[in-house]
């Protein structure tokens, strides 16, 4: 039987009236669908947001890079007496050996320290990073104003610095920092550039990337000249509790020629370093591998989420079916009357199926609104990034409609198959 659109609209209007007649019952019935849909959208948004952050972060390390970090082993800290000299991490020897690996195009070393940066009485604790000019490109650093230091400044060990955006706002709230002088320990540096603000923060710090916003970049040769190769960690007591370590490099960033060679290169690096390092005082980070892992985690997360969602939607659907069966019984006589005045089985099916779809779709709509609201609350109060994808909204709403059809078809069939005579007699 053909149903034209106008007639369909009338059926929907009639159905809506019947559902509205029992507001509370209808509302309670659709709660299962509401929570099912809301949790799908909200959890996907939270998962999507987390993985987006992780992905952005990992991508900022460069998917063609391998990063090696010096790691201070905890056992060292125990055996080491206060104010004695510890030695750990990557060395010049490592640098020269790693350079010989054919698939490694370039190695950019970095030396770091946590230190107070001063300017006209203002101060901020920042991460001082001594490195090469290429660091900027490899780490996707953007320069908002001014410029990065160049090869000449590196060669001449010039006292120049590029400051992160947080450092800038702390030290130079109003004035233009370019050309101004900042003081680190007892040395003075001229500010020549300001790094662009990086939006992702928080979670990224637990990873290997520095928070570019509170970093100060200076030429590696300059750090050598002014600060040597010592790292001083201030303990809780006086100078005697300070911990001094001799560290040549804190980080190597290795550019690999082809993405395909990343994994083999990583294992080569591991071999090379294990020959010279007795303890594993380094960590090899393969961003590409992390990216793959993040994606795998997300897939598993989605499967778990999908199962939870499926269960809650099935439960919601059973709730709808239950109420529809009750409604059919309750309105048995009405069904008989409608059949007597000429309704076909198909008409009865349409009527009750429409009601169950209206129920589930209303649940879906409320669920969508709730599902959009929850991630906003999470972002506001937990500071987590959330990302609502249009497809998750579309998908969960579609599923809610499908649930209405699936679980509404049986009660509707039952209604249509009632014997009109019996239905008319029903008390």
């Amino acid at each position, binding site marked *: 039987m053909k149903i034209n659109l106008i007639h369909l609209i009338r059926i929907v209007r009639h159905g809506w*009236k019947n559902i509205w007649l029992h507001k509370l019952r209808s509302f309670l019935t659709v709660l299962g669908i509401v929570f099912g849909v809301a949790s799908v959208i909200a959890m996907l948004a939270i998962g999507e947001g987390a993985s987006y952050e992780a992905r952005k972060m990992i991508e900022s390390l460069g998917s063609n890079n391998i990063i090696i970090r010096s790691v201070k082993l905890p056992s060292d800290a125990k055996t080491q007496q206060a104010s004695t000299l510890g030695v750990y991490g990557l060395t010049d020897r490592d640098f020269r050996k790693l350079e010989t690996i054919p698939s490694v195009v370039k190695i950019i070393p970095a030396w770091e320290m946590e230190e107070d940066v001063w300017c006209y009485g203002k101060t901020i604790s920042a991460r001082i990073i001594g490195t090469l000019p290429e660091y900027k490109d490899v780490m996707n650093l953007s320069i908002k104003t001014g410029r990065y230091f160049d090869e000449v400044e590196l060669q001449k060990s010039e006292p120049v610095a590029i400051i992160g955006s947080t450092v800038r706002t702390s030290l130079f709230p109003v004035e233009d920092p370019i050309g101004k002088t900042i003081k680190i320990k007892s040395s003075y540096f001229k500010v020549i550039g300001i790094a662009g603000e990086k939006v992702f923060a928080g979670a990224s710090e637990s990873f290997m990337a520095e928070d570019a916003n509170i970093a100060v970049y200076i030429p590696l040769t300059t750090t050598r000249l002014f600060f040597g190769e010592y790292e001083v960690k201030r303990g809780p007591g006086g100078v005697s509790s300070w911990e001094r370590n001799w560290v040549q490099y804190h980080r190597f960033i290795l550019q690999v020629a082809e993405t395909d060679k990343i994994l083999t290169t990583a294992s080569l690096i591991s071999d090379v370093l294990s020959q010279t390092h007795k303890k594993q005082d380094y960590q090899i980070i393969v961003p590409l591998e992390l990216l793959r892992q993040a994606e795998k985690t997300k897939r598993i997360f989605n499967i778990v989420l999908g199962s939870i969602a499926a269960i809650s939607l099935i439960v919601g659907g059973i709730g709808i079916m239950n109420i529809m069966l009750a409604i059919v019984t309750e309105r048995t006589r*009405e069904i008989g*009357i409608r*059949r*007597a*005045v*000429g*309704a*076909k089985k198909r008409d009865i099916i349409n009527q009750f199926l429409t009601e169950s779809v209206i129920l589930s779709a209303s649940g879906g709509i409320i669920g969508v609104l709730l599902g959009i609201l929850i991630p906003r609350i999470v972002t506001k109060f937990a500071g987590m990034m959330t990302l609502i994808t249009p497809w998750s909204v579309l998908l969960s709403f579609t599923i809610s409609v499908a649930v209405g059809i699936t679980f509404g078809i049986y009660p509707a069939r039952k209604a249509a198959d009632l014997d009109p005579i019996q239905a008319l007699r029903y008390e």
Partner: protein
Amino acid sequence: MNQNNNQIIRFEEITKVYHLGKDIDIPVLRGVSCEIKKGEHVAIMGPSGSGKTTMLNIIGCLDKISSGKYFFEGKDISSFDDDALSEIRSKKIGFIFQSYNLIPQLTVLENIEMPLFYQQVDEAKTREKAIKLAHMVGLEDRIKHRPSELSGGQQQRVAIARALMNDPVLILADEPTGNLDSVSGKEIMNLLCGLNEKGTTLIVVTHDANIAKYAGRVLKMLDGRIANEN
């Protein structure tokens, strides 16, 4: 057989058996043959349980027969399927029941409109016609009311208006005055007879001899058979 085209209904040896359980058969109609002409007013009388309602439901294409042949407007509809029978009810027949059978959550007007809903007739036209019929049965000021707010006689008038919505050729009334006082009953019968005078075939089941008096012909049923015709 003489297929007279002013004949609306012909029953040939119709039986109706209800099956209860495996081998309990309850014969309700035991071979009924009769003819009803277009425009006739027929009353069906008989004691309770004699099969009057069953016969009326079969005439109205609501119930299926067990054996025999049923001709409606000259067509053998004994083997029609559910959709085809629904179509006949929708286009040709108006039902009136003893217990009114209005839908409680709908207004008077919505109840009257219902038959045309299933013919997918335009909404404005449907409304116009329903209001006209409400006028005709004297309920124009009650169209927004729910059935429960009306008296029995008023409810039955709503049912008559509903039965007229599809311009039926045949009106079937099963004890239409059974729940009414004699004054309301009279009003209802006057309405129905008025329709019959305009040419609609009318079949009324009753066990009230006063009601049967309105009819041109009375079929007396006894134990699933037509006992005598006068």
